[in-house]
């Protein structure tokens, strides 16, 4: 069994004004996995993330890192935040320095690393996010997609074990979203544990190893994406929609073209592949690489 790196155990959280935000959250994050927290706006995804990083204290229950309940003393928190990085949704509030270089160096400098180490880490983070050519640009002149990447570089430069992305593709156009997914794939293959929150069901379905569905501050289900998305009442309850891959797959099964036992397609290539050829084979539709 893979190691559990991060865990929420019987976690409750109420905002200072008394609003109940999270209720009885139990979630285990396995080392190296790709986990998606899926839920509509206001389901409590971001609030849960703040817990993982020690930004909020739970009202009851606890967060464990590598099996140890985390401590909220300053020193322990610094150690935790070194290990668990969050890329917030709005890059505008993540980039608070005037130049890209300064911003990316903020985290490592705070860790008290030597200047050489900081410089090396910043360089590497800029390379990983393909933002090296932006190094000297003032942050406010960047495009939305560039800001997003620089904000990721700022977290990468701290070399965390677990990286949490809050609604990473919101506001990104298809190309930038693709590039982002590519970057995340690389991070994942380097062994990082990745948690993403989103309400984009297509992304959640295709990308994740495991899925947790949140609704009104609770985790109402978790498991393999292919299993969860075949429970329409669950999806409905969480105010979500079905991924189109599943809709088409089910449509084909319903019409009798695919046997019900066909495994669900994970990507559009999969889907197009499992559609069997018809005897008369004609085409003039363009095929996109």
């Amino acid at each position: 069994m893979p190691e559990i790196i991060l865990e929420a155990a019987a976690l409750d959280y109420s905002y200072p004004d008394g609003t109940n935000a999270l209720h009885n959250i139990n979630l285990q994050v396995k080392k190296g996995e790709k986990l998606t927290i899926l839920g509509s706006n206001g389901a409590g995804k971001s609030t849960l993330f703040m817990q993982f990083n020690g930004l909020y204290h739970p009202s009851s229950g606890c967060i464990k890192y590598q099996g140890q309940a985390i401590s909220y003393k300053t020193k322990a928190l610094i150690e935790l935040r070194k290990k668990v990085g969050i890329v917030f949704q709005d890059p505008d509030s993540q980039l608070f320095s005037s130049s890209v270089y300064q911003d990316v160096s903020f985290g490592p400098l705070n860790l008290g690393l030597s200047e050489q180490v900081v410089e090396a880490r910043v360089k590497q983070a800029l390379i990983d996010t393909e933002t090296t050519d932006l190094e000297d640009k003032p942050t406010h002149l960047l495009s939305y997609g560039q800001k997003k990447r620089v904000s990721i570089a700022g977290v990468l430069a701290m070399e965390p074990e677990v990286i949490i992305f809050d609604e990473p593709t919101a506001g990104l156009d298809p190309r930038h979203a693709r590039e982002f997914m590519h970057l995340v794939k690389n991070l994942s293959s380097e062994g990082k544990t990745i948690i993403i929150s989103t309400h984009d069901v297509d992304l959640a379905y295709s990308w994740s190893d495991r899925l947790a569905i949140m609704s009104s501050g609770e985790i109402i289900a978790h498991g393999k994406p292919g299993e969860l998305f075949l429970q329409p009442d669950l999806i409905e309850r969480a105010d979500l929609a079905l991924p189109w891959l599943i809709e088409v797959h089910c449509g084909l099964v319903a019409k009798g073209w695919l046997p019900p036992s066909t495994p669900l397609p994970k990507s559009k290539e999969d889907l197009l592949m499992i559609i069997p050829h018809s005897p008369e084979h004609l085409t003039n539709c363009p095929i996109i690489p």
Partner: protein
Amino acid sequence: MTIRKLKMISLLITYVIAVYIFFPNDAYGMHIMEGFLPFNWAAFWWLAMIPFVITGVRSIKKTVALHPSLKMLLGMAGAFAFVLSALKIPSVTGSSSHPTGVGLGTILFGPTAMTVLAMIVLVFQAVLLAHGGITTLGANTFSMGVVGPFVSYAIYKGAKKLGAPLWLSVFLAATIGNIMTYVTTAIQLGLAFPAATGGVMASTVKFLSIFAFTQVPLAISEGILTVMVINILSAY
């Protein structure tokens, strides 16, 4: 002799601890609280504030007529000042307190506009945070919106004229502006509550020394911070 010295030292320690207890973590500028000034003094400071507010309103109207988007900018600047005052800044003594933003605002928007903005911010601080008050609005606006900004402005311009580097002018403007705000408040309290022996002077000195403990470090912290902010802004 040594026992007396010991007593003096213990008294000093008691004082420091007392201030820490009374000002645990939120030394909000130094606004005079609601109802603290007697009716006559409250009215006096309201009247004293009005001409400055009118001058401020006139100057804002003039600039807004030329640049209509400036109204939104001023509105947001006011909101910014409020948010600033609700944040804690690490003080050089280790405790933390809240910046006033007077120095920064004056350098960016000029002293006359600051009078109006300070008054508005003080209304919101009173109603939303219960810092300061409606009856004491006149007195608080006079110290934070008139004396503070005008002193800051004079020092900023003066220091620049004397050829001081930007950081020094900004630091002096913010720090001294802040200190003068607190001195004005102490004088206002002294005037309203003359001591039974020693009168206004004795009372003012008492207030000055009591609040010095939190206000002087705050002024220095704010000075440093204002310099850092202006440095970042001018790098833009």
